[in-house]
């Protein structure tokens, strides 16, 4: 079976700094692939290239067999919802002026969900999936903890049924008990919906616990692969 995502010989340079120097990665459907490396090793750049937030200098990123970077704008618009990203810093992941409910409704409306009643049912379903309560919906991000924000972000992402999620250090700013909650929720979602994750982390203990395979990055190159 072909991989859901295939990265071939990815190269990315910022000014004179070659951050990625020929990266090859495959991620299967329903797999959690860990990406490990120290700060500056290029982990986040890989994730940002997949999510379309950076464009590589050369190389290709195939999603379901199609090169993301060679697509037309119209094609990209169709594919982009299927690839979503969770960022490291919960405090800047949500619009500070929107309540959690509005943050969850926004992507649904963009994707054509206009029936108010079914919209509310969908939001309820989403918060149950990530273990939040109704009372969280009326809160602004400033009144939510880091773990609660990451769960709102996860629910927001899941609202448009992605098949691939890039999670860039999703728990590095969280304490151990909340980290365990968020990672277990991600695991449960994978079992229920079959999503694939690229989990970027500098915590090898976390990766060994939740990933199927781990790719080690060093100075923009893959230095090893481990089956967890």
């Amino acid at each position, binding site marked *: 079976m072909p991989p859901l995502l295939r990265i071939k010989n990815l190269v990315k340079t910022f000014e004179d700094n070659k951050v990625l120097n020929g990266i090859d990665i495959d991620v299967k459907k329903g797999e959690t692939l860990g990406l490990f490396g120290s700060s500056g090793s290029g982990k986040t750049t890989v994730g940002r290239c997949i999510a379309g937030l950076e464009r590589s200098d050369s190389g290709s990123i195939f999603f379901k067999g199609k090169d993301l970077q060679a697509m037309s704008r119209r094609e990209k618009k169709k594919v982009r919802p299927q690839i979503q990203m969770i960022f490291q810093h919960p405090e800047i992941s949500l619009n500070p002026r929107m309540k959690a409910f509005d943050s969850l409704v926004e992507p649904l409306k963009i994707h054509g969900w206009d029936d108010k009643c079914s919209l509310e049912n969908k939001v309820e379903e989403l918060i149950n999936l990530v273990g939040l309560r109704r009372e969280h919906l009326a809160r602004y991000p400033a009144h939510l903890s*880091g773990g609660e924000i990451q769960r709102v972000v996860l629910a927001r992402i899941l609202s448009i049924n992605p098949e691939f999620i890039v999670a860039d250090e999703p728990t*590095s700013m969280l*304490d*151990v*008990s*909340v980290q*365990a909650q968020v990672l277990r929720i991600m695991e449960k979602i994978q079992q229920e919906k079959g999503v694939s994750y690229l989990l970027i982390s500098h915590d090898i203990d976390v990766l060994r*616990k939740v990933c199927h395979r781990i790719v080690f990055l060093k100075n923009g190159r893959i230095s090893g692969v481990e089956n967890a």
Partner: protein
Amino acid sequence: MSYLNVSSLCVDFLTENGSVKAVNDISFEMKKGETFGIIGESGSGKSVIGQAILRLLPSNAVVNGSISFGAEDLLSLDNKNMRQIRGREISLIPQNPAGSLNPLLKNKIQVAEVFEVMGVNKKEGIKSVLGMLKNLLMKEPARILENHPHELSGGMKQRFLAAMCLSYKPSLLIADEPTKGLDSFSKKGTLDLFRHMKGEHGNSILVITHDLDFALEICDRVAVMYAGQIVEVGPVTDILQIPSHPYTKALLNALPRNGLIPLHGHTPSRIDLPDGCLFYTRCNLRSDKCGTERPATKSIKGGVVRCHLY
């Protein structure tokens, strides 16, 4: 004799929804030269204690209890005398090093500003920081002073702030989440930095952290906080290797190497606190008594625990 003594400390924040009990009857003491850790999950009130010691809480905070530092009662000092202690005697290495530096100014100017406020000769101050940066194992300290904050990594920013704090030779350092968001390499650097401060400078350090491994490496004793209360205090190896309180056990079980077992449920509302134990709804070992009667602290094996099981 205790060096820092926090006794029956309560901090409430007055909000439009009611009074939020951020810190609820906290007592602990630190000896000179000791490294004392406060551990617990986000929102448990750890950082509020550090801010209460330095009297840096916002105006809606109501503080009760006492905090004595040497012969001084910090909560009754006037502002002028508190300013003599803040930064000079007690210094804070803040939680987010990036947010503590002005991105528009060169590091050198930010160092000079501190000494200017303190009324010390700027040149002498910069010289002392240069020595301190060298001492904290930073390469090319002169170049670092000429850089802007964005040119330093997270770990370097933290060392730079530590050097600024240590230049005044404070006898007590408060470090708020020193390893938050750092990768393993930078964490090791932070650990070396704290060992150095502890060993070479003999500083007393109050470490506020949710990084249990870091606490185990650096602290002599720790207090575990849950929902604004200390639930357990004792020598770090006892607490983190043979914990007594069910919350401490749950916290350790959430570590990836111990199974990544999440703690179910939510912390209680801090506006309407329940009558019984604050951990009651999440505890696997609860009894009926736990739901109705708040446990008091009891002395056990060189420390204290707040649980009806003991």
